[in-house]
């Protein structure tokens, strides 16, 4: 965990006071709604279909048990008893009253939690791998760099009124769990041949109505230059990004219009002026931030303890273990994913009671620490392997042990027409129905890894472009229709999906998805070939022929 100090706490208190004042000025009429809007957005407050929505940042996906418990408290006291984890390591509360917002924020601020820059045309919550600090694959703990960027970007005077929102994601492992290639800036931390740490810098990725995979503009940027380089990117974008059309204002459009090469040249020219200035990170500064991350006191434990071997005799435990537990860098410890996708429930939702259960389990078994991943699941990054059977028993009792992580029912979905003012179609009920069709775990295990992503409109909050199967809700003559894409992915081989064929009606979607899966089972070269690899090998045509022939 990162330890907030008196500076962070003072800033947070000042921000809460500032927002309280802004709300008062809005209620008194001194601020018009138009003037208030960007101010509330930069504190995470949206106006949705039915009520104000509060979006809270979970910086780089890391939460303490006390912080999660406080979120449960906010859900219970100010909302309707649940919260919704999003694809960007945030949590949303959908039913908060404007007059309660400052108090809810003050309650959260007591445990160092806030909604700062979770919305608005500014640098958003910096996201990273939910396995950071725990996976054996990483070159360094990416949260160090996410924290440095969090501080740098917080209330940045120059970049608070950008052309549009700006999202940065970091991966420190070759296997990209942070979807860095579909962010405005993606940073890939690695070591060069000399063993020096640095970032590959990608810009101009993103989804929405004009999706792009990010382009690499620098293969290796020594870590000490990360802030000055980001400042150079931001400065070029702030001055030259389009402001005439909200749909063309993201950095991806600028990069696309002038070309990645010209964009890189502009950035490098700006950077040459500032690279050795006040933003250059010294070892001392980096070490200072690094020292503020406290790691668990791992004990020397057996890698395969007797408790685990005994528990694996139970097929239900064994199924969960094989699905939801991953290798930790310390022998005797494991990374546990907690599925927030029970069959038939809205993806990413957790009740206040479930949040309390997870917080208690984190206290008992996981060094008080919880993570949130972009797939809308939770994670306990540091669990002693010998404790897994007892942890599983308690998760199972709280309906938090559905062994469907990375399965077809582990669906990413936006809130859609059930909540969102922008949506054209429902997303959550589509996800619920698909997960019911694939409730049989033997069947879904036989299908293997398959990511279904659903968005209720072209703004693509459900990341449909990068779903192995992408589902996009559109509106035609007042009716909900859905376009299906195949072959998208958000990992290190990021790619946008290809349209399968004509849009289908709401009722037809679940059947169509079943047909696609049946086609895959028939077409795959062996049970080892994943859905995404079959699509990559054959293209969408053979799927199209089979699927539309039956409809």
């Amino acid at each position, binding site marked *: 965990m990162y330890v907030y100090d008196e500076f962070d706490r003072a800033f947070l208190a000042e921000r809460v006071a500032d927002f309280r004042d802004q709300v008062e000025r809005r209620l008194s009429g001194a601020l018009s709604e138009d003037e208030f809007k960007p101010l509330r957005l930069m504190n995470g407050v949206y106006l949705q279909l039915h009520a104000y929505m509060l979006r809270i940042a979970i910086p780089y996906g890391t939460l303490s048990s006390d912080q999660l418990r406080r979120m449960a408290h906010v859900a219970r006291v100010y909302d309707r008893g649940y919260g919704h984890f999003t694809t960007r390591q945030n949590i949303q509360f959908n039913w908060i009253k404007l007059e309660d917002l400052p108090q809810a924020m003050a309650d959260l601020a007591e445990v160092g939690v806030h909604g700062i820059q979770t919305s608005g045309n500014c640098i958003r919550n910096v996201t990273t791998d939910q396995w950071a600090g725990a996976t054996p694959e990483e070159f360094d703990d990416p949260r160090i760099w996410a924290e440095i960027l969090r501080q740098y970007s917080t209330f940045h005077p120059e970049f608070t009124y950008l052309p549009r929102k700006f999202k940065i994601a970091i991966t420190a492992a070759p296997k990209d769990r942070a979807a860095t290639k579909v962010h405005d800036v993606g940073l890939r931390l690695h070591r060069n041949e000399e063993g020096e740490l640095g970032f590959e810098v990608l810009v101009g990725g993103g989804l929405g109505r004009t999706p792009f995979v990010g382009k690499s503009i620098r293969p290796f940027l020594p870590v000490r230059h990360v802030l000055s380089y980001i400042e150079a990117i931001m400065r070029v974008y702030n001055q030259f990004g389009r*402001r005439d059309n909200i749909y063309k204002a993201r950095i991806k459009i600028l990069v696309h219009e002038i070309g990645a090469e010209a964009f890189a040249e502009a950035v490098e020219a700006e950077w040459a002026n500032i690279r050795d200035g006040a933003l250059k990170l010294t070892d001392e500064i980096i070490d200072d931030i690094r020292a503020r991350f406290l790691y668990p006191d791992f004990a020397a434990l057996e890698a395969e303890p007797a408790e685990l071997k005994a528990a694996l005799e139970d097929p239900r435990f064994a199924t969960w273990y094989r699905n939801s537990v991953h290798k930790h860098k310390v022998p005797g410890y494991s990374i546990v994913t907690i599925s927030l996708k029970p069959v038939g429930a809205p993806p990413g939702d957790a009740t206040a009671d479930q949040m309390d259960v997870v917080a208690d389990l984190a206290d008992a078994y996981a060094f008080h620490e919880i993570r949130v991943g972009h797939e809308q699941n939770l994670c306990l990054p540091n669990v002693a392997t010998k404790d897994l059977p007892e942890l599983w028993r308690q998760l199972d009792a709280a309906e938090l042990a559905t062994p469907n992580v990375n399965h077809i029912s582990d669906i990413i979905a936006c809130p859609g027409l059930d909540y969102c003012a922008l949506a054209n179609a429902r997303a959550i009920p589509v996800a619920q129905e698909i997960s019911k069709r694939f409730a049989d775990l033997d069947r879904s295990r036989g299908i293997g890894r398959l990511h279904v992503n659903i968005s209720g409109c072209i703004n693509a909050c459900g990341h449909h472009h990068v779903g192995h199967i992408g589902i996009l809700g559109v509106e035609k003559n007042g009716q909900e229709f859905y376009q299906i894409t195949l072959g998208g992915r958000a990992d290190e081989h990021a790619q946008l999906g290809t349209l399968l064929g004509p849009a289908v009606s709401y009722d037809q979607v679940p059947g169509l998805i079943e047909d696609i899966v049946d086609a895959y089972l028939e077409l795959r070269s062996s049970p080892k070939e994943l859905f995404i690899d079959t699509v990559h090998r054959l293209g969408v045509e053979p799927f199209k022929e089979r699927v539309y022939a039956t409809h």
Partner: protein
Amino acid sequence: MPLIENGKLVEDRFTRVADEDETLPASTPLLLSLDRFLKEEEALKSANVEVGIIWPNNKPIAEIAPYLPRLALVALNFPTFRDGRAYSQARLLRERLGWKGPLRAIGGVLRDQFLIMARSGFDQIVPVKPADAQAFDEAMHSYTVFYQPTGDGRKSLLRARLGRSATRADDNGSKDRGAAA
């Protein structure tokens, strides 16, 4: 409209000249658009008055360099309060081009932006609302903590933190409580 300079309400010495105004007012400091300034360059020289220009948002600020020695004021425009190009222009003008003279924020200037304008290098502000002008001091002191350095001389946390170590007592999930395993 009120003019605030370095925190004080002051009289605006400059007369704003619209592009369509036919003649230049005599013997008073003038604030003009870049286009008008270029059109009247010779006349302005011979009139021997102080001149300020409003630099356009869509022109790189570096191109102002040749004119700076002749200027008594630079103004940057906020077409709406949501359009933040002038923040970058202001920082470049101060920190890159070394402009030490007055730098004025005009257009969509609201109270909640005063502090970030000051941090970006503006020392003159023309607020849209008179009530905002009254709240200037309060707005400027709403924060004491600044995470990142700009050219404004305020100490940033990046440097201020150095030499201090993490205080574990404040932690929510620190290792000293992590005895479960």
